[in-house]
């Protein structure tokens, strides 16, 4: 039975939002709200904050490239997701882009750990500015410190153009370069799936810095990227068409488990280096992936099955979904929306509140090692199991 914990408003209209909030507050006086706003509506965040300050309801939120509303992508309105009790949240601006991350991780973990201890099921929902290049390392460091006290899920947020913009907010602040961490009690985590397969041919990123690959096999990265594209897939990648091809030919970091972690190259510099969404460890052995002929039904099946294993049947429940923007680019809008429709049909969810993301945090099953991915879908049941 739907909990009425998700509400889409097609505009950031005070009256409509106040009406929703007040309705929710009648049943849940201690409520808090997570807002997902498309980047086209980022200018309205201030108004949203003012409304929630006026209503004295705790607000946190993020700006995404687009929203997912009724199995379609939308750049209007906003999703409002209710917490029956306002969760503990931590909004940290300007995380260190280089240098030792341990002090920042210590500070975050130090603040979060007391909120996690003793909670029977809790998910750490992490929303991170996509321009913070070290999400993977930060995730490793948090997992090292917080261990299995929580399930981990999240997404990278911001502008699809990868321009630096404020993209994380609460009722008072609107920041960039940082992280919003939410302690979601009663949640048993998320399931992540991308559907890529490990190819035969490997290359080595011989020079990297954070999310930037300078050299592959000791040659300028873009030259090797071009050569591999030609050799493996017969495509001619140039500087001019790079932004079209990048999402179709991402890198894959190969894992011993037979799976890969996808890194979509999203920027090409004059020196031939390639910037990805997410870190590429130095000397990583990479695969140049051909974007899969996505079997949407298989992807959806895996996702729903995984969620069912965690939460039981998802039919009638409300789902939160992060859908990779690169995946939408690769598949194209019709196929991507078809995938969304397939998910809706397969899950029979009461509602799916989703957003287009610029990187995803999660794992393929409950209690698996959390990783930062590209090109995936991350789904979670919204609300207590």
């Amino acid at each position, binding site marked *: 039975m739907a909990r009425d914990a998700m509400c889409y408003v097609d505009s950031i209209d005070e009256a409509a939002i106040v009406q929703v909030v007040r309705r929710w507050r009648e049943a849940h006086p201690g409520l808090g709200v997570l807002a997902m706003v498309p980047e086209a509506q980022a200018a309205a965040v201030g108004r949203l904050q003012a409304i929630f300050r006026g209503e004295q309801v705790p607000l946190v939120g993020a700006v995404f490239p687009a929203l997912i509303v009724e199995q379609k992508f939308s750049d209007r309105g906003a999703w409002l997701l209710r917490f029956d009790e306002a969760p503990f949240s931590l909004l940290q601006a300007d995380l260190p882009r280089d240098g030792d991350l341990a002090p920042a991780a210590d500070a975050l973990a130090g603040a979060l750990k007391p909120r996690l201890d003793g909670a029977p099921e809790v998910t750490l929902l992490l929303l991170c500015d996509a321009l913070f290049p070290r999400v993977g390392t930060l995730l490793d460091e948090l997992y090292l410190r917080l*261990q299995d006290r929580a399930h981990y899920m999240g997404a990278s947020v911001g502008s699809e153009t990868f321009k630096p913009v404020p993209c994380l907010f609460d009722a008072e602040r609107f920041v960039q370069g940082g992280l919003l961490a939410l302690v979601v009690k009663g949640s048993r985590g998320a399931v992540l799936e991308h559907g890529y397969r*490990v190819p035969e041919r490997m290359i080595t990123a011989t020079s990297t810095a954070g999310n930037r690959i300078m050299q592959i096999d000791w040659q300028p990265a873009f030259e090797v990227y071009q050569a591999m594209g030609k050799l493996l897939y017969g495509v001619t990648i140039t500087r001019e068409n790079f932004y079209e091809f990048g999402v179709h030919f991402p890198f894959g970091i*190969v*894992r*011993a*488990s037979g799976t890969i972690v996808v890194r979509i190259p999203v920027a090409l510099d004059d020196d031939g280096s390639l910037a990805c969404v997410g870190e590429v460890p130095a000397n990583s*052995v990479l695969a140049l992936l051909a974007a899969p002929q996505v079997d949407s039904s298989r992807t959806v099946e895996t996702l729903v099955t995984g969620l069912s294993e965690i939460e039981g049947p998802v039919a009638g429940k409300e789902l939160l979904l992060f859908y990779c923007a690169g995946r939408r680019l690769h598949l194209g809008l019709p196929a991507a929306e078809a995938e969304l429709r397939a998910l809706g049909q397969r899950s029979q969810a009461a509602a799916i509140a989703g957003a287009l993301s610029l990187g995803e945090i999660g794992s393929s099953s409950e*209690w*698996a090692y959390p*990783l930062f991915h590209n090109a995936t879908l991350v789904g979670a049941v919204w609300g207590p199991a």
Partner: protein
Amino acid sequence: MNREHVMAVLYDMAMVIGSEVELRPLLKRCLQRLLYHTSFPVGLVFLDPPSTSGESVEARLELAIGDHELADRAGSTLHLPAGLLGSEPAFRQDPPLLAQLGGTHRPYQAFLRLPVDGQGVILLLDPRPPRGEPPLPHVFAPVMANLARAIVLCRDHEARSAGLVAERDAARRGFAESAGTLRAMSDAAFDAIIACDGAARISYWNPAAERVFGYPAEEAMGKVLHELLPAMRYRGPADEGFRRFRESGRGPALGHTLELEAVRKDGTEFPIELSISSIRLEGQWCAVGILRDITERRHLEEVLRRSQKMDALGQVAGGVAHDFNNLLVVINSYAELAMGSLPDTAPLRADLEQVVLAGKRAAALTRQLLAFSRQQVLKPVVLSLNDVIRDFEKMLRRLIGEEVELHTGLAAELGRVRADPSQLEQVLFNLVVNARDAMPSGGTILIETAEAEVDAGRARHLGELRPGRYVVLSVTDTGCGIDAATMSRMFEPFFTTKAPGKGTGLGLATVYGVVRQSGGHVEVQSQVGQGTTFRIYLPREAAPAEPAGPEPAHSPGGTETILVAEDEQAVLRLTERVLISLGYQVLATSGPAEALEALARHPGPIHLLFTDVVMPAMDGPALAERVRAERPQVAVLYMSGYPGDVVAAHGRFGPGTPFIQKPFTPSALARKVRETLDAGAAEGGRVAPP
């Protein structure tokens, strides 16, 4: 996984292992990468081979990721089922075995065991049944071997590092202690210690430098050293010297002790002694200067120099006075005798009176010379300085005239001093006269008394006093003041700033001599145009004041026989004549040998030996000894123009030895001879008069 996939994973692991040099990061990163690659959510690292005990083993859990309960037990020894920690790589789905893991509430389903070649075991745990491609345990064997070696290397490295750190810490502690000791020494140093870099900028400034120059360290640091020197005299050469020093580490001032002037923060100049040495720090020449304020030393040198000059002048003045005294004894005595033999109406009498007056003035001058040279005979008594001033005040008021006001400020509880009261009056007189003369248009003279404690430092500064309690007489005027040139010479005899005929130049010399001979010190403070203060320090005396006895007025004579020994013929003849005129029998001899002969020839009694102290061949005390050897009852009276003689012969005279200072008057001689003869008779051991 194909071969290339395996190689890719192994390559990644090998790169991680090779990039760490410390154990904890090595294990952490390896375990993180293993979890990443295998999708296992939990990893445990047990270091060192487990010890087996029956069905279980004991192993130290070094690191745990993914299970917070086990992570909390990191560092402790766990008891585990033996099947869990074998020496072979293994992947097993064995919930019952894993249920014996303990320390966690999580029911694990499967584990991947990766032995680390004798260095321990890595255990990866999964709470869910394995899905997808099962991991190949042996895939990781090569990197586990690498990890084992890396663990050994890291441990060695950390042990060496710990050793080095311990050495470094010990060295730092030693350095800190040494630096602390050096700093404490530097802080405690009496001398200023200043260090400069090659550009002469001050880089070290000890507390003594703060005291000497007046700049606190924070203000002095970074200042150019030359700013502490008088600009006109030194800064140019110092600039040039430092330029050479910066280039070569050499300079003309290095290795020498220099005396020069420096400038305090308040702008005053003062003399310093400076020695500079060079040190090389971080490839640059630096200079270290040790600097002493020698103001006090210069002052003491000046005090000593002046004292030595005054002593030398005193010796000369004393010698001259002695010779004059011999002449004046003759002149004055014969003049008095001649006057005594003339009737009152004799025309020659007026001439002789002038001779006598001139002689008395000359005698007064020689007395002042002797006073300056500290060779006059004082008659010290314990007295109150306040009483002397009160008795003398009326006379002083007459002396200074109406233009000058005289005030006194006498301390109510003033200690006594031992001094000759007439000489103190002389001192007061001279100082007041000088003060009056310094105020031709009028002014004020203030005479004060006080007590003062002179400590060792003050005594050293004054140069002429011992530490102790002193009575201080101050005479202050509001006159013209004394300039530095005059100040340096004003106690010299015959030095005067007064017009010819207005002063003898012996006033302050007399003050100096009397005060010094009384164990005191004269201090002068003066400012030109403002006035002058003379302070006389006299040692405080504990004994009560003594009343002064009356002087007898007549010239008593006698009939005793007196043996006179005097090598100065004029004095001998005069003495003989005076004594004969007083009724005595006189055996006049011109020296010891002649006296002893006379003694031998004279069969009758001899009552008194009257002898000069200093004579050729034999001095007076030796003669007296020889005479007493023959005739023990003979009384002895000494005469001398040198009180210094008395001091020199002090070991042979007892205190109270009869003595008369030349020049003496016939009446004074008469009284002293009679007094000596009577004293000898009173003792009963002397020859009775006929």
